[in-house]
């Protein structure tokens, strides 16, 4: 030990700041902020709506990534929170228009500052209830039970004729936000971008915290964490609820964006799409889900404009991308930059 004990603390204890990464993120934000101008400049205004959709889906995918990528909990029911968020906006809008009471109360709103937090809370509440049960299982059982819960909610809304059933609900006007014209596509884009930046910043803080590091430890070995005295269940449940709230937030924004909500938002294929975004972009990386959402939706759009059999082309592209990019697109970016994985 003598040689070690006598060694002075040569290396500075502070974590070296990854200036390059921060700079890259800042550049990305600037690029995204001016994107509507660029789209108009190049005569592609439809790009703004597409980019808004990608940004919203990136919020949902990043939320799933918290539990799937960091904690290793492959939830196949993430669309449930996404759809619930959408329906909260739709139902509140419907009641604000008709003036009908909801549960005997004069509830109804078309104000974004009410509907979006309500969507987040309701999605979080349901995630807490279903998560408390499903997190008692693991592995394939967990995947199946989350899928089953999500399908329960899907069929509930299919059967809910009061709110459109299979046909869904139309939201004639986007929710209002004081001082901003949400009907303007560019303004709406910037609102969604701002929300996404805040959500990603929050997730970044969560992941870097002790809580986030415990989630990473749980992914590697839950038993080992337990042997160190960590009760893993509350950590997993809180992460599950945060992910649910993120799904609800994305759903609320998407309902406003599309001005429509239907059980399709809750369907298992939507959950699968979120999982695909996470895996394609790089599970367990902060920006991976955003890359995944952008590439998946981008490819879908480009290929769908080219041929009606676009899935036949998209499928192999995605399989190859996942097979040959270790760690998804984020892994590919790291490889090109010569960096290390997180």
């Amino acid at each position, binding site marked *: 030990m003598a040689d070690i004990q006598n060694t002075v603390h040569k290396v500075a204890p502070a974590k070296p700041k990854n200036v390059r990464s921060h700079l890259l993120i800042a550049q990305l934000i600037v690029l995204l902020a001016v994107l509507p101008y660029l789209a108009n400049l190049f005569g592609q205004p439809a790009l703004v709506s597409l980019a808004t959709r990608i940004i919203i889906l990136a919020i949902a995918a990043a939320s799933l990534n918290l539990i799937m990528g960091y904690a290793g909990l492959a939830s196949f029911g993430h669309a449930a929170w996404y759809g619930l968020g959408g329906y909260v906006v739709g139902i509140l809008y419907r009641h604000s228009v008709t003036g009908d009471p909801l549960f005997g109360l004069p509830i109804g709103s078309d104000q974004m500052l009410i509907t979006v937090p309500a969507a987040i809370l309701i999605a979080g509440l349901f995630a807490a209830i279903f998560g408390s049960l499903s997190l008692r299982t693991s592995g394939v059982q967990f995947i199946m039970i989350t899928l089953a819960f999500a399908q329960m909610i899907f069929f509930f809304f299919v059967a809910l004729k009061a709110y459109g059933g299979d046909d869904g609900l139309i939201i004639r006007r986007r929710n209002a936000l004081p001082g901003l014209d949400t009907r303007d596509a560019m303004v709406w884009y910037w609102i969604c971008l701002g929300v996404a930046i805040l959500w990603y910043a929050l997730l970044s803080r969560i992941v870097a915290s002790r809580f986030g590091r*415990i989630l990473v430890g749980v992914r*590697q070995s839950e038993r080992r964490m337990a042997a160190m005295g960590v009760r893993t269940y509350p950590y997993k449940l809180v992460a599950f609820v945060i992910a649910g709230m993120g799904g609800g937030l994305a759903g609320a924004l998407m309902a406003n964006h599309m001005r429509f909500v239907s059980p399709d938002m809750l369907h298992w294929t939507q959950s699968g799409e979120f999982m695909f975004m996470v895996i394609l972009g790089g599970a367990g990386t902060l920006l991976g889900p955003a890359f995944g959402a952008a590439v998946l939706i981008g490819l879908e759009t480009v290929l769908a404009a080219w041929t009606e059999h676009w899935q036949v082309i998209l499928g192999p592209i995605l399989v190859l991308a996942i097979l040959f990019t270790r760690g998804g697109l984020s892994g590919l970016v790291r490889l090109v930059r010569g960096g290390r994985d997180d």
Partner: protein
Amino acid sequence: MMLDVQGLQAAYGASQVLFDISLQVGEGECVSLMGRNGMGKTTTIRTVMGLLEAKAGGIAFLGQPITGLAPEAIARRGIGLVPEGRQIFSTLTVRENLVATSADRRNSAKPWTLQRVFDLFPRLHERQQQWARTLSGGEQQMLAIGRALLTNPRLMILDEATEGLAPVIRAEIWKCLETLKAEGQSILVVDKNVSVLRRLADRHVVIEKGRTVWSGDGAALDRDLEKVHTYVGL
């Protein structure tokens, strides 16, 4: 008595591994658990930690039965484990490994802090931002010990802490255990190095085919050294 194991039996499915294990660790005591490979040393530790269900027998910690408790509940009562094969969290940095599971559940007068661990293992201080998987075997072992210390355990269990390490690193680990013992830390150390354990431990327990076959203090070990060597396979 801090840890009291009586007539412990355990099995992996239908294959019984422990038949009758008894051992005790007192406050501030260092006890060695010796035996050849495959005799049940690690299984004993796994059973004490609740990672394997006890079939029969009793385990008490600080006078309270802990048999059948979940691993986290046992660890939270004050048992810190340095598992066989280190088992550090490779996807976390050295610092994150230490901080993630740290706790001071007993409000110690002199709790283990990151700084104290870095003082004990300056190499960890130097490498605190490195991914744990990039550490050498010896450094990983130091990390595993530091991680266990940061849970401020009343009893520390080290399972084959020097296994597979270079002699110079082993010497560092043994020196570290001597330091901990001098500070009054209760230790149960599983190893096969009789000569070092003779010097380090206050009492010794030898197991053979899942049974405690010999136990005694340092003087008894000196008397029965040949017998113990036979059991340990040296």
